[in-house]
């Protein structure tokens, strides 16, 4: 059931490439089934039904209904309580996912530093020794290489204005705030090459700073790391 809900609208969504992508889709689809498929359709049907049913007909006057009386007000009160129950379900689902994705960070296998600046993304990979801020780090611009199945922590910071790391296939969005280092996590589960966008307006180049996330199998990742280790990536942005 949960699986079916999580996948019910995947035709209208980008592919799910991170471990919590399906959880976020689950919340989206749950809201869709409860609020749109049930409530919205019901209310619009009643609404249009009333218009058609009570159109002006000669000789038929309108009724005098104050709506203050108890039995009249029942029509408003009952949907009211059902809505509250639905809201409780939705809030529980939303907070559960929010807690897992944003609040609680699992133990990382590796850490990546992501630096946003006016109109480019630059990434610092931990390099073969697996630790960040060592001299064997691999700094790249616009290309983030990740290994499938590894839990990553990202340290997101901005050089100048507000940016926002948005990886649609991970269903991930996190604003980069100058003056803060924001930590989050993701865990790729499929291979492939996907877009990274900036989701917070950052000046003229906001729409012109695309980057790519390349999800590789452990072997490809090791090969890339070996290859990239020798020749430093062009024009690397050095984190302080």
């Amino acid at each position: 059931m949960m699986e079916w809900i999580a996948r019910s609208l995947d035709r209208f969504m980008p592919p799910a490439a991170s471990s919590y992508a399906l959880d976020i889709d689950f919340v989206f689809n749950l809201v869709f089934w409860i609020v749109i498929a049930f409530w919205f359709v019901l209310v619009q049907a009643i609404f249009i039904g009333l218009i058609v049913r009570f159109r002006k007909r000669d000789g038929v006057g309108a009724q005098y209904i104050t709506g203050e009386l108890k039995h009249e007000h029942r029509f408003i009160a009952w949907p009211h309580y059902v809505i509250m129950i639905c809201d409780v379900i939705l809030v529980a689902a939303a907070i559960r996912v929010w807690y897992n994705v944003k609040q609680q960070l699992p133990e990382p296998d590796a850490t990546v530093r992501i630096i946003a600046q006016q109109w480019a993304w630059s990434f610092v990979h931990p390099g073969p020794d697996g630790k960040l801020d060592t001299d064997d780090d691999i700094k790249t611009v616009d290309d983030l290489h990740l290994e499938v199945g590894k839990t990553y922590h990202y340290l997101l910071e901005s050089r100048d204005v507000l940016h926002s790391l948005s990886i649609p296939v991970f269903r991930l969005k996190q604003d980069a705030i100058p003056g803060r280092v924001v930590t989050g996590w993701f865990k790729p589960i499929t291979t492939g090459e996907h877009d990274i966008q900036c989701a917070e307006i950052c000046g003229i180049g906001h729409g012109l700073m695309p980057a790519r996330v390349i999800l590789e199998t452990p072997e490809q990742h090791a090969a890339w790391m070996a290859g990239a280790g020798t020749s430093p990536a062009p024009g690397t942005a050095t984190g302080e």
Partner: protein
Amino acid sequence: MATQHVEPAHEHHAHPQESWFRHYMLSTDHKIICFQYMFTGMALAVVAGFFSYVFRMQMAFPGMHVPGWGLVTPNEYNMLITNHGAIMIFWVAMPVLIAAFGNYLIPLMIGADDMVFPKVNRLSYQIFLLSAIVLIASFFTQGGGFGGAWTIYPPLSAKPEYNLTPWGSSLFLVAVALEFIAFLLGGINFITTAMNSRAPGMSYHHIPIVVWMIVIASMLFMASVGPLIAGAIMLVFDQTLHTAFFDPNRGGDPILWQHLFWFFGHPEVYVVLLPALGITAEIITTMSRKKLFAYKTVLNTAIGTGVLSFTVWAHHQFVAGIDPRMANIFTVMTLIISIPIAEMMFVYIATLYGGSITLNTPMLWALSFIFTFLIGGVTGIFLGASGADIYLHDTYFVLAHFHYTFFPIAIIGTFAGVSFWFPKMSGKMMNDTLGKIHFWGTFLGFNGIFIPLFITGMLGDHRRIFDHNFFPELATPTLKGLREFATLSLLFMLAFQPIWFYNVITSLLWGKPAPKNPWNSNTLEWTADSPPPHGNWPTLPIVYRGPYEYSTPNRSEDYWPQNVPS
């Protein structure tokens, strides 16, 4: 009860033969000030509508030479979207819905001859006009208009070397601050008039819902705009004096501005929603000849929604780096606030039960308001749920959601109000068939624009991105097709707008003269002449009952105006 005595008529001292300029431009009559606000608002709506045409063309056909604008460069694109948003909210929705309808309806509907402070009323329009001029001037400064989104987030807006519009950003902020001052002055005038100048016999529960809604909207605006005025002063100092309120490198904090802005931002959307709800209530009850279902519930939910709107603002900032634990509080509050609004919608729909509905143009607009706003409301639940917002924030899903709430408010609400009160405002009837053609063209066109944009938003299209071809996953044929369909629907909708202008002008010149009460409505403005003279009535009316006594049992007529003694 106050002793019932007829106040002396407003002494009709002979107006010295006023020059055209003094009579119209410097008038203190609430009706003329209404028209000033409305024409300014509608002129700016044409400007903002043109902006949306230009950037929609750029969205559908990137890099193309847009007829009427030429090539859209990235900074022009940012300027277009920023000012489209800001103009539509601050210089179209608020002046037309709150200031124009507020000025016209409040005195007439509560049986007063004018606002309590006519000169302050005129001053508020003049400051508003000045703010519009300052905004338009910001387009022609060196570097062009401000391009940092209507939310004016620092540090982008604070430093010219980031936003490359040194003059544009400061003038934009000054224009917004001036507009706030104009609406503070106007708001105090509206609230004091509605509270203090009601006709004898009009208790708090005899006030028509549209007056209540505009007054509650003014109170919400006044209570929420304060911190943003303080924030605007701090941001102007950051821009001009290089102080460091929002500069993270020197001890400031950009998140403080986001909180200051959205503490104002969310009550602001309810400020523009409530008057449109009021207009819809008036039209629905009149055209279905039905008493408003549960008047007290509508009133209490409006006040409830207003108060709750001060507790939800950070749902705009879920992923903006606020403390994740705070997001849980705001998710819960956002879903709680959806309850009173849903109840209000149920009450409006319940009002139609047992009615005899005439589907003329005003009623079509009012019903389409409910239909469209329901879509806007339900899609808000996706964004209020913090779990889903991680993905949906700043996508076209958000954009389609708030257009499904703003469009019914600003466009459908305005057309509904104007088509309903046009006979009273001008003394001429509007052509109903032309009205319906214009209605269906606009309604279908609007849905054609934003239903596809919901889907592009789910597929990962992000807002404010100048050219989607830079992102391979957003350049797929389906997304391209949806964007082109949206732009074509916009052109389809824009093609229908001249019909409305033609209808207004021809009705003004050669329309059928309108009787005092063309829709057989109960409220007091329909007891004055059309158009009402200065001072509205020879003797101010006295009120005996509520505004919605339609089809009361054992009465010959199916309406019972408020000022008819028995």
